[in-house]
């Protein structure tokens, strides 16, 4: 079985959970003898290629006049996109985006000349334009390679998936890692993104969601028939052994939030919970690691609550810094308002940190050794954190059982379920 898989990013070039998940999945699929062609825009050349053959979309020549693509291009509504919905992007990346925009203007000229053109590989201002161009590349690839089934990850790649399906006639599976409802909240839906998501799912032969939470959203808001949607929970890669030790420099206990500072992640609830705890117990420090559009309002709120001396912002952390942060933490909190899955708590548990997670997260469906609260229940969240900090046995128990639990959440198992989805889709096609 051979799969043409469309992604947007691949390790080590990752801005969000999508890259991590698609990497884990491809590795898991390989164990079940599934071959893959993984398409990402702009492969940097240092990606881990043990798992898949990565085709850099930039390496595929696009013949503008090729008939199928021409048709697709005609059907496609070209969308300009405002800066307010840039997913997975941090303020630090502003400069880079600016560069990208300059690039794309040049690249447009290339396109018209019918040549290869280059993708920025990052989510940016010109996202919609890139989505459209990626779709054309998708069609081009589909006509040149041999495969049995198409698998597209998240809305950014859905147009590519649809184009590939049209060109090849092979079945399409789309994978919902997040929905526009999670990213923006019900009142700020970007209808264009929503449209692409819906179109992708309607055109697909099967939809995979990363949690039942996401499955419910897909059925309820996108009007996708329930029997077409199947949940395959994400998993986690086994831990790399960290060979560094971190010296604790503060005597207080440390409670950590790690994620983008956006509406979706609920950072403001973490701040309010911190206030409740600090009122009762001064021997705690709170760390907020991440960046995002709520950064300034959160700083203001922390100052207003007069807890700034015990509440620290680290900015965006990656790589070893994340592992170090976990080594310093006594409790990890994920108060997400809407989290399709949520990988970070699993990483925390793997590093012996007990976790408090919101019930509005997909990961809450699979985890037993975690305290689960409603994201808005600030008192419950504070109580859970306080309990973990003060009643020793609870943290001990979570650490002991949590590591074991996370070790059993293997991509191998998730990949097998995905393979079964492929098999069902292919069997249906044969009939």
């Amino acid at each position, binding site marked *: 079985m051979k799969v043409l898989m469309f992604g947007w990013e691949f390790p080590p070039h990752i801005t969000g959970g999508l890259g991590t998940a698609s990497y884990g999945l491809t590795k898991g699929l390989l164990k079940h003898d599934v071959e893959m062609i993984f398409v990402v825009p702009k492969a940097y050349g240092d990606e881990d290629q043990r798992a898949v053959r990565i085709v850099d979309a930039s390496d595929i020549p696009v013949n503008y006049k090729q008939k199928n693509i021409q048709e697709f291009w005609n059907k496609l509504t070209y969308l300009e996109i405002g800066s307010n919905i840039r997913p997975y992007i941090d303020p630090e990346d502003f400069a880079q985006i600016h560069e990208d925009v300059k690039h794309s203007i040049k690249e447009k000229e290339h396109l018209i000349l019918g040549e290869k053109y280059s993708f920025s590989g990052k989510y940016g201002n010109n996202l919609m334009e890139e989505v459209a161009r990626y779709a054309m590349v998708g069609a081009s690839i589909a006509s040149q390679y041999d495969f049995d089934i198409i698998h597209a990850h998240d809305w950014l790649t859905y147009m590519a998936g649809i184009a590939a399906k049209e060109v090849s006639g092979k079945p399409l599976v789309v994978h919902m890692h997040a929905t526009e409802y999670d990213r923006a909240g019900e009142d700020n839906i970007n209808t264009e993104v929503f449209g692409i998501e819906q179109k992708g799912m309607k055109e697909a032969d099967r939809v995979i969601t990363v949690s039942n939470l996401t499955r419910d959203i897909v059925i309820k808001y996108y009007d996708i028939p329930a029997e077409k949607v199947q949940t395959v929970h994400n998993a986690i890669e086994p831990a790399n052994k960290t060979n560094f030790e971190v010296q604790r420099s503060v005597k207080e206990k440390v409670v950590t939030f790690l994620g983008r500072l956006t509406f979706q992640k609920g950072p403001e609830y973490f701040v309010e919970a911190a206030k*409740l*705890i600090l*009122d*009762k117990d001064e021997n705690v420090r709170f760390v907020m690691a991440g960046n995002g559009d709520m950064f300034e309002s959160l700083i203001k709120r922390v100052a207003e609550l007069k807890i700034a001396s015990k509440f620290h912002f680290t900015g965006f952390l990656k790589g070893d810094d994340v592992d170090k942060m976990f080594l310093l933490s006594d409790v990890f909190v994920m108060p997400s308002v809407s989290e399709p899955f949520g990988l970070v708590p699993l990483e925390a548990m793997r590093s012996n940190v007990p976790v408090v997670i919101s019930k509005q997260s997909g990961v809450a469906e699979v985890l*037993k050794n975690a*305290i*689960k609260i409603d994201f808005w229940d600030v*008192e419950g969240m*504070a*109580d*859970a954190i*306080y*309990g973990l900090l*003060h*009643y*020793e*046995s*609870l943290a*001990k*128990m979570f650490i*002991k059982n949590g590591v074991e639990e996370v070790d059993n959440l293997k991509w191998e198992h998730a990949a097998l379920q995905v393979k079964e989805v492929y098999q069902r889709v292919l069997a249906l096609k044969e009939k």
Partner: protein
Amino acid sequence: MQSVCLYFQVHQPYRLKKYRFFNLGNDHYYYDEYLNKSIVERVAAKCYIPMNNLLLDLIKKYGKEFKVSFSISGLALEQFQEYTPHVLESFKKLADTGNVEFLAETYAHSLSGLHSKEEFARQIQLHQEKIKSLFGQNTQTFRNTELIYSDEIGAQIADLGFKTILTEGAKHILGWKSPNFVYTNAINPRLKVLLRNFRLSDDIAFRFSNQAWSEWPLTTDKFVGWLDKFDKKEQVLNLFMDYETFGEHQWVETGIFEFMRNLPEKIINHPNLKFSTPAEISKEYQPIAPIHVPNTISWADEERDLTAWLGNEIQDEAFDKLYSVEKAMNGCTDPGLQKDWYRLQASDHFYYMCTKWFSDGDVHEYFTPYSSPYEAFINYMNVLSDFHIRLGNFTAKRESEESNNRNMLQQQEDVFEMLQKFTNVKFSELVKAWSVEELSFLYYESNQALRDKILKVIGKKNFKQIQQYRESTQSLSGRELSNYKEKIRQKIVVFN
């Protein structure tokens, strides 16, 4: 003749309200009063009242031939008094028939037997007193919380004067042996041990309404047919179960009440069967052998062990923290603290913290008011923390009172010591400045050496006055004593 022994357990814990850590030190009411009241009222309407009435009818109908036994935890009795006094009246009526034996247990339905012999004994006594005052019975039979039993627990129960104890006829302690005989405690053979026939008991308590069960529906004929098949040498058929089986666990629609209404007739009319209470069985039958239970058993879950309440990390920490104040509670006379002390000991709180149900035992989920064992633990620990704070305050207050008293004593001695240092000449001058009252105080509150000194300088006539004055006055309060002392001290200072 074989005896059928019906024993029902009645218990309701005081469930805790949601108690957050920021309530610590401020809020000292721990219970979800609405929940507790509504549960007791509901169970009263569905089970206690209809079933008590049914038993009363049966006793009226069959007289001495129909008997049952109960144990009702102290916490359940408290709640009946508080929320449903008519339930208590109804149990009193049952007691008045003389056909009902009330057993002793720990007042708080606690696990104290696993922690401390002293606390265990205290709670049993408290429960015995409660049963005596409400139902006029001196208890002779004991049943421990959740039928928890071991050779050692049995031996202590024997030492406390009980003749009989109830426990589970667990497979792993019986082996090939039958639960249908009277056994004795392995350490003290004077204590008889009655073992629950779990198969027959659970046929009624758990399987009665299970339509997937091959024996469903269970009729009284079928049930008595099973009893009939037992070896005639066997002595007893112990049917021990939660009283809430009737109407609460098995709903009225299942026919459980009809079953119980008709069962006695079938048993009484059977030539080889009769009803007996545990105390009667204990008198009537010769025990056949000691039963060895070196490791503690209970009637809970498949394992019949303690893992429903103790053994995981959070249960053990909560248990240790609870009993860390046992000693302090011994000296505590505050009625509010005492009440909470018992309510917090109920085994239910630990049951809610059990993590076994992650893999099995939906029974646990059915009984817990919490959405997870972790939530149960945090809530309990918050409450316990506040309880410890209050107890700490109480103890500190008492200690400071005691130390005040000690200080007063210290100061008093100081006055006396000062006086002893005076020469007789100076002392007699000093005494002239004192009133009869002061002299009287000084003489009677001081030591012998000072008394001699006083006698020497004042003469017999004056001494008589002091004596007369003393006889005419009431004993002095602490405040009056310190007032006198202070006056004398001032006079000494002035004189010097």
